[in-house]
């Protein structure tokens, strides 16, 4: 089988879907898996039989992983709290995410280590979402003790929709609303992974650097495009981009990861470093960028794909796009199988898969390679890429967001090249700001102009007749 990794990932995902739809007994799955394993070890000589058994085993692994991910350990924080509970809890742990904010509300996640209930202390594990309406001075890794009510969320929607399920996919089952600063007690020292703390601190510094050189609106958009920080994006801009189907430019994705890899590789090339050293350093920079932008699904996908491509380049092997893409999906799903039901995960992978699958077919069908005028060929290729992604994601967007936007194809042709230029300029601004801040001011004016142009084009496109319609 040419694409074994892709096959394994597909079967693994199928196993997760099966386990979600059909109620399979945990021990029944294990016994079948053991039987298959025995058969596979006996039938190792027959290649086809062995392959089928391995694919079945991958499917059962998907089933088992989903089942075990829904079983929480006995010391999990959720097991100490009842649904309707007015007890005051004291939870100790450390901040395990960056502080987020929106509409005057602040929140972060706390990795719990100890819980106190009725003067009795227990060791515990699990994560807790902490919400407050004042800005606390907290960073990733800060040790804290929080006092207050713990609330278990209940969803009236189906299994994969609603806020509770969104949080459950991130292994968060409890929320604590903090009303006053005195409910938060800082403890000495810090925990967590030092590298993540450094990366998040670097992101905060770069955000300040961007907002120092650009006005609020432009800074918010550039921070989203370069650093993956969306909190300063106005609601109307976000909504307008959802309507034109170009909201993907406001998140860090494979495109940004590609730019980082290209820029780092180029800088190292200028420094005349060797090929192997360049590849190693580029891979390290990609990992740092992934951590800095919050390790969201699209960034993890792009980083894993980027690492696969770098490894192929290092070992002088031909990389396979399907293997690397589905390998990245497998990587995410092994860690958290419930991500398969996340809309962001689905859109991220299906859009890339649609481009990879449909684009060559459409290009051959339209005989685009025969076009001799370069600019027309370039525009045609842009149209086909945009159309392929739109085609692939059409059903998911229509089902989840109840919107169909035919303007997406045109909008992407106009906006994506502009967004590419803005992102490249954004990285230039950030790098120059780190090295020579005065130069950054010079670069900021063209960026502001390009962002204004992008917003104006988007506003015009959304107003076109039949640009979008709600279902």
């Amino acid at each position, binding site marked *: 089988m040419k694409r074994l990794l892709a096959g394994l990932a597909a079967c693994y995902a199928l196993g997760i879907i099966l386990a979600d739809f059909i109620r399979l007994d945990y021990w029944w799955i294990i016994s079948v898996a053991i039987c298959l394993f025995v058969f596979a070890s006996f039938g190792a000589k027959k290649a086809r039989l062995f392959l089928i058994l391995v694919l079945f085993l991958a499917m059962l692994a998907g089933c088992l992983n989903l089942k075990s991910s829904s079983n929480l350990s006995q010391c999990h924080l959720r097991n100490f709290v009842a649904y309707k509970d007015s007890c005051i809890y004291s939870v100790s742990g450390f901040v395990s995410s960056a502080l987020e904010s929106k*509409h*005057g509300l602040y929140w972060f996640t706390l990795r719990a280590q100890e819980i106190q209930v009725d003067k009795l202390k227990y060791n515990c594990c699990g994560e807790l979402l902490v919400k407050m309406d004042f800005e606390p001075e907290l960073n990733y890794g800060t040790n804290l003790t929080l006092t207050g009510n713990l609330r278990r969320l209940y969803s009236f929607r189906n299994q994969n929709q609603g806020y509770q399920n969104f949080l459950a996919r991130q292994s968060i089952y409890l929320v604590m609303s903090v009303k006053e600063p005195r409910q938060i007690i800082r403890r000495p020292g810090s925990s967590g992974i030092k590298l993540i703390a450094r990366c998040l601190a670097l992101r905060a510094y770069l955000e300040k650097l961007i907002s120092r050189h650009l006005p609020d609106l432009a800074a918010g958009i550039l921070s989203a495009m370069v650093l993956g920080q969306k909190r300063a994006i106005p609601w109307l801009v976000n909504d307008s981009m959802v309507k034109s189907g170009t909201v993907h430019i406001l998140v860090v994705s494979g495109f940004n990861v590609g730019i980082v890899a290209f820029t780092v590789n180029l800088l190292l090339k200028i420094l005349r470093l060797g090929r192997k050293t360049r590849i190693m350093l580029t891979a390290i920079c990609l990992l740092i960028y992934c951590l800095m932008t919050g390790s969201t699904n699209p960034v993890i996908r792009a980083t894993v794909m980027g690492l696969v491509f770098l490894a192929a380049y290092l070992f002088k092997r031909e990389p396979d796009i399907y293997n690397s893409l589905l390998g990245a999906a497998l990587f995410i799903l092994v860690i958290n199988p419930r991500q398969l039901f996340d809309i962001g995960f689905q859109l991220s992978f299906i859009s890339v898969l649609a481009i990879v699958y449909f684009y060559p077919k459409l290009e051959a069908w339209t005989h685009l390679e025969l076009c001799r005028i370069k600019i027309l060929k370039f525009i045609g290729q842009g149209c086909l890429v945009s159309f392929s992604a739109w085609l692939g994601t059409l059903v998911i967007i229509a089902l989840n967001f109840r919107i169909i936007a035919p303007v997406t194809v045109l909008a992407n042709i106009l906006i994506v090249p502009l967004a590419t230029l803005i992102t490249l300029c954004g990285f*230039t601004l950030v790098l120059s700001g780190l090295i020579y801040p005065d130069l950054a001011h*010079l*670069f900021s004016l063209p960026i502001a*102009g390009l962002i*204004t142009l992008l917003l104006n084009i988007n506003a015009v496109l959304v107003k076109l007749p039949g640009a979008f319609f709600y279902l």
Partner: protein
Amino acid sequence: MLNFTPEERKVALFLLGLAFCGLVLSNLIKVNCRLEARVYPQIQLARLNLNKVSLSELASAKCVPVKLAQRIIEYRDFCKEFSSLEELKEVKGIGGKRFEKLKEIFFIE
């Protein structure tokens, strides 16, 4: 000294082009202040003007329910115009939490 690879030349050209654009724009802004409004993104692109927005615009933006949009327009017609965003709290159905959201959607000129 100019023994650059084609890629390095492209990067150098890009950086020079960007710096050149920056210089030209900053000079143009100094000469004509009106250009600043063209270069920097205006608030109208990111927020709705509370004193000029129509009911249809408000309803199509889907930032508030239709009934509440009607109440906002009725209040504006009654008072001639909103003097501050805080005045939105006077409209029935807008409490503290909704106001926090709405103040990031509207602006007053």
